């Protein structure tokens, strides 16, 4: 038995895992339309590389990574791109996001798949391959995996198969049914990171998965560790602490302490990518909760949730759906949202399974939240300051070490929506940080402008002085002409004014009739010239708009 290093706190909600493991996983039918958001990963959204009307093959790249912290998106099936437009996305905001709409043709024609020998390519090449194939963390955070792989000489590679949230069983089923393939994926990750030791952490409420993994790991040196069932042992930081006793430094990366952590489903996709040449286009999704046939399904990314849930036959008294687990999941306002790489579970809710929480009462500082907090925070203080909008203090009490696991809200006898307060405070602070950065930029530019104006003034003064000297010299030669020169200056100002006035007239005319007149019978050369100018104008406009867009996305990263 391996020594475990328990983390502080944690809770143990009712598991509800048996319901969805009664049946083995099945493959969800191909829907008619797939909605593939371009933002299915942490970082910048992918850039579409197809346009409406294009025919695409299954596995073909339809969105390419934009920058380093980004990933690619692929067509989950063959068919025709019908549109690239804003569609509702599974996000707490409920806001629409840019998505590619694919009309499937039912033929499932694959693009040419190529397995690669990962030992033959250098780690950098392998990472690039993962980015191109859209490998991201499937545990829920969907951070691009190639970024996480970018560290070598690792002490420990932790495979996160704890699956601590209630209801969710997709990783459990994956390990039960495809343990050997998971292990092949682990080999790839171990190779890419040069890890000396591999620990697979599985909560002890999944004996079948543990047994399957133990058999598959025989002779590999990988160690399957059964960890106590305690939410949130599936949080990367907490699992690393549990297995290795090391704490990821606040604001730092696990690689700083020689550890990296991948979700078990992620390493499985690494295996599919490397050994089968299949990009990440599907995943196991648990359909459970208030349903007649709860079960895990292999679902194509982009499948609308509304169509998917029908497979498990939700009961009549279902009140709504939840994407993710009950502790950290997102309630879905709109069932047209698609399954994305992050979706591990869809839970049908009912009044019986999720009774409405009692009314929130004032905080009585009972510190049950502090006892339950796996990050050793004092949630009651964070709440006190967040509620009073005292963000500075909230930060001093380490608000940003909060992992939003929801343990505090779970145990709170006053039923205060604590996590919401932390999310609110965090986004307010991020917003302020963004504003401060913008202010710094503006200050810098303003100061430069003042400096420039001062310099120009001096230059002008110097010029004037030089000119004056010249004048004086000239005046000495012919004193009569000096007055005229001064008059000339006035003339110049007047001329400028007149020019502006003329331009205004012209502009007014233009405004009145933006559509150019008298173009009916122009010689072909002139028409071409006009077109060219118009195009240039359009381009300029686009550039301006793009810079607006860039600014927007800059803001987004701060959040």
């Amino acid at each position, binding site marked *: 038995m391996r020594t475990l290093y328990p983390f502080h706190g944690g809770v143990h909600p009712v598991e509800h895992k048996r319901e969805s493991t009664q049946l083995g996983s099945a493959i969800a039918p191909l829907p008619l339309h797939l909605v593939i958001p371009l933002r299915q990963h942490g970082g910048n959204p992918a850039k579409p590389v197809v346009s409406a009307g294009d025919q695409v093959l299954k596995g073909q790249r339809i969105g390419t990574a934009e920058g380093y912290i980004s990933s690619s998106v692929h067509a989950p099936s063959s068919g025709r791109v019908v549109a690239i437009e804003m569609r509702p996305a599974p996000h707490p905001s409920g806001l629409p996001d840019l998505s590619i709409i694919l009309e499937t043709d039912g033929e499932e024609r694959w693009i040419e798949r190529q397995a690669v020998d990962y030992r033959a390519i250098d780690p950098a090449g392998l990472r690039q391959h993962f980015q191109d194939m859209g490998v991201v963390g499937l545990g829920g955070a969907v951070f691009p995996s190639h970024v996480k792989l970018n560290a070598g000489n690792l002490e420990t590679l932790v495979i996160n198969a704890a699956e601590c949230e209630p209801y969710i069983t997709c990783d459990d089923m994956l390990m039960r049914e495809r343990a050997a393939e998971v292990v092949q994926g682990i080999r790839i990750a171990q190779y890419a990171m040069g890890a000396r030791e591999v620990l697979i952490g599985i909560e002890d409420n999944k004996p079948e998965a543990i047994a399957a993994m133990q058999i598959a790991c025989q002779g590999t040196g990988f160690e399957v560790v059964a960890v106590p069932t305690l939410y949130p042992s599936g949080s990367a930081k907490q699992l690393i602490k549990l297995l290795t006793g090391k704490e990821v430094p606040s604001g730092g990366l696990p690689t700083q302490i020689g550890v990296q952590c991948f979700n078990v489903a992620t390493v499985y996709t690494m295996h599919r990518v490397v050994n089968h040449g299949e990009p990440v286009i599907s995943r196991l999704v648990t359909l459970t909760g208030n349903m007649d046939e709860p079960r895990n399904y292999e679902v194509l990314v982009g499948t609308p949730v509304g169509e998917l849930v029908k497979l498990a036959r939700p009961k009549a008294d279902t009140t709504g759906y939840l994407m993710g687990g009950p502790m950290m999941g997102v309630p879905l306002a709109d069932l047209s949202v698609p399954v994305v790489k992050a979706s591990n579970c869809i839970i049908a809710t009912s009044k019986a399974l999720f009774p409405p929480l009692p009314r929130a009462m004032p905080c009585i500082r009972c510190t049950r939240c502090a006892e339950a907090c796996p990050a050793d925070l004092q949630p009651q203080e964070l709440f*006190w*300051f967040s*509620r009073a909008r005292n963000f500075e203090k909230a930060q001093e009490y380490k608000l940003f070490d909060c992992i939003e696991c929801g343990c505090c809200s779970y145990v709170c006898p006053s039923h205060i929506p604590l996590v919401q307060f932390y999310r609110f405070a965090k986004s307010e602070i991020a917003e302020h940080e963004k504003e401060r950065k913008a202010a710094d930029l503006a200050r810098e530019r303003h100061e430069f402008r003042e400096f420039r104006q001062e310099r120009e003034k001096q230059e002008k003064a110097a010029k004037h002085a030089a000119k004056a000297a010249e004048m004086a010299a000239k005046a000495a030669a012919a004193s009569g002409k000096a007055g005229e020169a001064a008059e000339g200056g006035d003339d110049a100002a007047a001329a400028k004014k007149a020019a502006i006035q003329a331009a205004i007239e012209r502009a007014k005319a233009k405004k009145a009739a933006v559509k150019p007149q008298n173009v009916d019978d122009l010689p072909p050369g002139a028409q071409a010239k006009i077109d060219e100018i118009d195009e240039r104008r359009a381009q300029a406009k686009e550039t301006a708009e793009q810079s607006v867009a860039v600014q927007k996305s800059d803001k987004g990263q701060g959040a």
Partner: protein
Amino acid sequence: MENYFLILIGTVFVNNIVLAKVLGLCPFMGVSKKLEAAIGMGMATAFVLTLASGASYLINQYLLGPELIYLRTLSFIIVIASIVQFTEMFIHKTSPVLYQVLGIYLPLITTNCAVLGIPLLNVQENHNFIESLFFGFGGAVGFALVLITFAAMRERLEGADVPLPFKGSAIAMVTAGLMSIASMGFSGLVK
């Protein structure tokens, strides 16, 4: 030795300058909104108070004597004022933020009744030089302690759901009153 100890305990807890003698309320209410400022103010006052009680003892004993009693208050104020001026310059140089936060209250240490009260009480109680120093220091520590505790309480109160009419200074006064009630438990402890 026991005598000095009793003076110290007495001035810090039992006859606390703020809670029992109700002196120095101006900075007590004014500079207790932030813990940092309260700590700075507490230290500045402690410095001034200890120096002032020592210096005023010397002046009273050796310069004024029994004949010039009518000059006592006047000369004490001069001494206190110059010590305050000195402290102010010192803080301005070493901690501009503290200087700004203390703001008007820093020069107001001069007119802090606690700072004048302690030397006058010294004279009244016929303390010798060492006793005067202890009395001044104890009073200052008592003042600083109460100020800092009070500031911490007010920081917490900022987040409290206090009814609108009582927000701010009103609830602070109530709190000071309740603190005073709490400190009454110590009455009868010394003398």
